[in-house]
Every structure is written in structure tokens, then in C-alpha cells.
């Protein structure tokens, strides 16, 4: 099962700054393992962010995103206590959703 994300959201005036850390291998599919075989590609392809249930951003990622991805984005009009939710889905169909309150 996928590990939880770390989401920190902080209101700075009228905008909330959101920083997300995700636990994921992000295998490119081009690397050889210790057994000499190519490690199959395994990476997050989509990230969806929402604010109080309303989508604010949808991202598509390729295998070039670093392992244990870090993402920062900004949400307009988000106040302290508002809910920021992030969902990722990888190329194996696995997904994970976590939520945090704006501080």
C-alpha cells in the first residue's frame, strides 16, 4: 500500500502556499537493477489538487520526476482551516489521496 503524503499548506495573505511530499519510487524504466535486468517503469502520472472539494490543479507527470516527489503550488483565496486534498495515480493504477488543513 502506498505510504501517506506529507502536505503542508500555509496561508500567506490571500494565497495558500502548498508543499507536498509523496513517497514513490519514480522508476524511469531505463535503469538496470543489481541483477542486470531493466527495472520496469513505475511512476506517478497524474496529480490532482483540490481546495474544499473544488479542483485547483491537475498535473501530468513523466518518469523524469525525482524519486519521492516534491510539489509546490499556490491556491488563491484559501484561508486557515480550509481543506487541501491531493491525489496521485501511478502507471500501475495505484493511487493515494491525502488531505491537510491550511495553517
Amino acid at each position, binding site marked *: *500500500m*502506498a505510504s501517506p503524503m506529507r502536505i503542508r499548506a500555509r496561508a500567506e495573505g490571500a*494565497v495558500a502556499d502548498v508543499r507536498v511530499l509523496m513517497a514513490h519510487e519514480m522508476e*524511469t524504466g*531505463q535503469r538496470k537493477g543489481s541483477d542486470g535486468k531493466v527495472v520496469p517503469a513505475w511512476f506517478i*502520472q*497524474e496529480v*490532482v*489538487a*483540490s*481546495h474544499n*472539494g*473544488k*479542483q*485547483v*490543479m*491537475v*498535473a*501530468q*507527470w*513523466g*518518469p*523524469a*520526476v*525525482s*524519486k519521492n*516527489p*516534491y*510539489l*509546490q*503550488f*499556490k*491556491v*488563491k*483565496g484559501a484561508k486557515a482551516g480550509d481543506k487541501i*486534498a491531493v*491525489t496521485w*495515480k501511478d*502507471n500501475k493504477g*495505484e*493511487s*493515494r*489521496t*491525502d488531505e491537510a488543513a491550511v495553517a
Partner: protein
Amino acid sequence: MSMNRREVLKAGGGAAVYTALASMGFFAANPAMAAWNKAAFETKSIADTLKVLGVSGTANSADVVITSPDIAENGAVVPVGVASKIAKTEMIAVMVEKNPSMMAGMYEFGANAEADISMRVKMGQSSDVYALVKADGKFYMTKKEVKVTLGGCGG
């Protein structure tokens, strides 16, 4: 805890956004299929990528800013931020010219998001990093060189 994509879309009331995005050509038209734009992640040159995304021409803009180090100590983690001050920015794409899969990420923004993201990408070698921005139907592009060095000891 984990939800599949469709549930999220339902829960978030995002179906309309999704359809809108699909019509923009960034997602596959068939919602039953993965929305991931495979073709855009398989291109081998900037020109090809623009073609796949249906971009006919781009303008330069000082309002698109790439934040990244001039030298990355390690290619496995290169911080790249892109911010667009152009009004009605709908999309930012981050590309690393010399990567085997040059498209690193594409971000679509709703009206309640600022066009300002940061991410971390892998870079196999020193390369130009491109930011492609779509705002009010027009495309803008800018680039910045990032040198990748070998960091520390051998062994």
C-alpha cells in the same frame, strides 16, 4: 483512504474541468482511458513536443520565470520552479531538452490556482530546461541552462 480517480473527480465535482481539459488536447479524449498524454511524454525534441501539443508558435515573455540552480550538485534531484505572471495562464509544461523523456510535467490550472509551481526533476546531463506556458489561448516559452556536476567521492 485511497480513492480511484473517478471517485475523486466525482467527489471534487471536477468532471466538467476534466472534459474541458480533454477538449484542450492535453488529456485523452476518452475518459474511460487513462488521461495521461502518452504521446507528449515520448517526444524526442522540443519541436516534436510542441507538435504533439498542437502548438504552432510560441512567443518569448519576460513574465515567465524559471527558478532553478545554475549548477545542480546531483542530477537525480534538480529543483525547477516555473511562475507565469501572464494573465489567464491555463497551463505550464516543464521540459528537459536532453532527457530521454523530455517532458517532465504539465500543469493545468483552475481559476483558483496561481500559475506558480515547483517540482524536482532528474537530469541525465547538463541541459536547457524549458517552460512552456499557455495563457488565453497563446503559447509562450522560455529556457534556462542547468549544469549537472558529479558531486562527491568516487568508489
